[in-house]
């Protein structure tokens, strides 16, 4: 059994990312959602209908890319897109539109057999955008792409959602997922282990990283506001609390506190959350995350570093 008790709902206008280790069941979940596989039990709905039904203009409204690109080698890129357009009962002009969207240019008129693996991925992504679809279901859409195409695909996904479209994707690109996704589901062993906005997942949720010239002054200023903070690899890490905490301080509070103390950060950003959340899911493989200080450590006068405080235990 690949999926067991998976309960997943993606609402209109969301960019939902499925994250998880290999074998977690992400691709299988997408296949079931698209009607490629039939679930042994439970209920699956795509756009409110049976995923194996074509009713409601489903072929045009749902674009997808599942696993590796699937291309006929003797078709040119443009012909392949035309084939998808006709199969999806979309206008032929859609092929030209997506060629322009992904910047395929003259490559579109060459047989797909001559494409590099990255170009094949771009073409398969272009095929998913033919319609134009309301829902995109994409399995690792940026794998194998060069940085330029990766950014372009990510921008297209963002634009799609900004226009009211919906995206369900699986990815191993945690930084992309964290930046793009409105909601992320962490999968392991066929189950959804954790779900929520990417900034609110895992032990690093609500944590900020501050880069300042004088970390000690920054720590003093932040502790004066009763914020939990500590040094880590030359940065100051600030814990602002859990998502459900009412009145949780945000980055502006940190910036104001530092500015009031005459400390001006060269960088202030949210800590990456998905990496640690992912590591938790795949526990055993997890690197030791930077941890907030204990109460005893917090009472110690600055300067202190958690590794030094550890020696007092």
């Amino acid at each position, binding site marked *: 059994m690949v999926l067991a008790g998976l309960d997943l709902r993606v609402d*209109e*206008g969301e960019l939902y990312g499925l994250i998880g280790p290999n074998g977690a069941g992400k691709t299988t979940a997408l*296949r079931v959602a*698209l*009607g*490629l*596989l*039939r679930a042994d039990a439970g209920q699956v709905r795509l756009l409110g209908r049976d*995923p*194996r*039904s*074509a009713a409601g203009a*489903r*072929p045009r409204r*749902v*674009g*997808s890319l*599942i*696993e*590796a690109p*699937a*291309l*006929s*080698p*003797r*078709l040119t890129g443009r*012909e392949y897109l*035309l*084939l*998808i*357009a*006709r*199969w*999806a*009962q*979309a*206008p*032929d*002009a*859609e092929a030209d*539109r997506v060629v322009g969207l992904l910047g395929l240019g003259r490559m579109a008129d060459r047989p797909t057999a001559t494409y590099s693996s990255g170009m094949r991925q771009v073409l*398969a992504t272009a*095929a998913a955008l033919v319609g*134009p679809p309301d829902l995109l*279901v994409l399995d690792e859409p940026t794998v194998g792409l060069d940085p330029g195409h990766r950014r372009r695909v990510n921008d297209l996904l963002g634009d799609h959602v*900004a*226009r*009211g*479209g919906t995206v369900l994707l699986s990815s191993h690109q945690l930084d992309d997922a964290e930046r793009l996704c409105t909601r992320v589901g962490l999968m392991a062993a066929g189950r959804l282990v954790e779900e929520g906005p990417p900034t609110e997942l895992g032990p690093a949720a609500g944590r900020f990283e501050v880069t300042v010239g004088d970390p000690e002054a920054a720590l003093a200023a932040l502790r004066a506001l009763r914020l939990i903070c500590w040094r880590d690899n030359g940065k100051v890490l600030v814990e602002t609390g859990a998502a459900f905490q009412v009145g949780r301080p945000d980055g502006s509070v940190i910036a104001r506190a530092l500015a009031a103390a005459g400390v001006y950060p060269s960088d202030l950003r949210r800590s990456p959350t998905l990496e640690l959340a992912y590591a938790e899911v795949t526990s055993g493989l997890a690197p030791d995350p930077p941890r907030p200080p204990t109460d005893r450590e917090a009472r110690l006068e600055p300067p202190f570093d958690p590794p030094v405080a550890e020696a007092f235990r």
Partner: protein
Amino acid sequence: MRRQRVAGAAAVGAPRHRAERRSRPFAGAVGLRARELARRPVVLAAFSVQAMALAGAELLGAVTAEGLGGAGDDLVLGGLRVLAVPGGLVFGVLVAAVVGSEFGWATERALLARDPRRLRFAGYQLAVAAVLSLAWWAVQSLLAVTVAALLQAGGGIVAGAAWNAPAHQAALAAALAATLTYGLLGAACALILRGALAGVVALLAYALLGELVLAPQWAPAAGWTVYAAAARLAGQGTIPVARAGLVVTLAFVLALGGCLALYAGRQVRD
């Protein structure tokens, strides 16, 4: 959210696209595949090999006393009989390879992810096979008639004396029936077994082993093969014509119904 959706649709020109939607998208998709098939080496190779075999057989028939396909001096009839059998069988192998390649390239997955109707996909493959069948039959028939006419003229055979229109028409029809039936059997093998190699092996096992080796060993089965029925429709053999027609029709219906029924529950795991 609703306002955003409308604005987004306007930005990508959706209303204009709706107006431009093709009236026959399925036929358009079949047409694209047919154009692609004309570029595939395996298709070109099969057409060339069959054409050479056909021309070679007619040349051999012209220089030997026995003629071709039991048609004596009538090389046109002999050529058309060769086109029916074993040409139909060769075509079945080609269709199994062509349809099976969709599974190798995983284009089946891409198309079913868009439109999950299995029967539409199977129908699409069968329509492509049908287009290929007609092309095969038309090209090879034209070649058979042209080469035979040239050889007869070169050999001093008066065309009018050798021209038996009813027999030629029957052989042409038999060639079409054999091409369509073996093509459908090849497509069915590939669809059911989900692969080019598996489809080709299955068709060859059925046709070569079953129809040409095993069936002749057992008298009751000998007259009930597609091969024997197609040959009879082309004017060869001794089995009743009605039975030959029944066998070809049954094979066609069983292959069509069997592959559609089995493919309807297809789970796309690869």
